[in-house]
């Protein structure tokens, strides 16, 4: 992934490692921190594979910096990657589902409270997102909207889990 992220940044303009890190992180509203060491090691691999060429540029009083340029082969690799659809990411909170099934079968804990705690966790995550849903930065806002929709889907599915496996605390207590 990082490999193509770097190629994508270099397709806009030649840049050195730290510049790539800064521009990439800014593009995603600083939500996606990238390790500078990883950038350097990935650049070295890209250079070895002929996807970028790097050139030492000397600076006054500062160490030399390596400015990298994407090659034709690099551009072709980027285009191929961009054109591949991303795999569907239906993250059904597998860890939660496993807990639910095991709780149901083992009777080790109360299913109702398991579901309610999960609901509260998801709602808190939705609440944490709210400031970003009206962010000025369009790329950040769109990302937050995507996460919001995912969490909504998780919550709806939780409602289904509740219908099948458990009732709300109150009606449970009354039963």
């Amino acid at each position: 992934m990082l490999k193509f992220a770097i190629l994508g940044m270099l397709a806009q303009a030649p840049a050195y490692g730290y510049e790539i890190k800064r521009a990439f992180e800014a593009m995603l509203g600083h939500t996606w921190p990238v390790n500078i060491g990883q950038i350097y090691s990935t650049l070295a691999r890209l250079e070895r594979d002929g996807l970028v060429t790097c050139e030492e540029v000397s600076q006054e009083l500062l160490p030399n910096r390596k400015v990298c340029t994407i090659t034709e082969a690099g551009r072709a690799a980027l285009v191929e990657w961009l054109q591949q659809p991303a795999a569907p990411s239906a993250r059904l909170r597998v860890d939660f589902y496993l807990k639910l099934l095991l709780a149901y079968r083992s009777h080790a804990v109360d299913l109702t409270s398991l579901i309610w705690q999960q609901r509260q966790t998801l709602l808190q995550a939705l609440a944490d997102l709210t400031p970003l849903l009206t962010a000025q930065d369009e790329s950040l806002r769109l990302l937050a909207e995507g996460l919001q929709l995912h969490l909504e889907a998780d919550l709806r599915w939780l409602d289904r889990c509740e219908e099948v496996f458990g009732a709300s605390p109150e009606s449970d207590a009354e039963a």
Partner: protein
Amino acid sequence: MSILETRNVHKVYRSDGVAVHALRGVELALQSGEFVAVMGPSGCGKSTLLHLLAGLDSPTEGEVVLDGHRLNDLNESRRAILRRRTVGFVFQAYNLIPNLTVADNVDLPGLLAGRPPAEVARRREELLEALGLADKGRAFPHQLSGGQQQRVAIARALINAPTVLLADEPTGNLDSRSGNEVLALLRRFNADGQTILLVTHDPKVASFAQRIIFMRDGRFVSEMEMAGGGDPTRVIAKLVEVEQ
């Protein structure tokens, strides 16, 4: 201090001899300055509750105390006066009057409450400004988008500086982006001290509140306080899966 309270409120509707229990003993205490969402599936009684809170309908049993007044003790005309002074209402449908301008729609409840026109106009200007509609005063509702119309409805609901703003699925007719904008505005009014109670089936909407009360089958079954002030970028970093 509690500005809106219900004590053991029940509501039973009867039709053709069949009793439908819409509310089964609701205990609510809304504090001044709160932003509360009552969340539940359709048919759980949340809209009925909102009508009782606004004094638009009476409980079968129990009582509603609005701004220190027991609604049961008031006759309809006194209740209407209290409602005008203390409650702002925002519905799913914007319910603007089509042949009045935005400014006139917003002013109407203020003038009906007998407040001086100049004061009403000043308050309207402030509200339209805060809602990003400063240049829309002369427009007619049909010239505005859904999100803009709902923001006009919010200005109208706030023109009398109500003790509490009640909202019933306020973003139900809006696309998610305009909905988020409307909710962010409600949150900003809340930050300035406006007490808000909204009812919704939608967790995306409820997540803008400080406190969520969960409703099922006519009663409150659980509630949660939202933790605020998290670093949103860290939240995203946690939620986004980066494929390395």
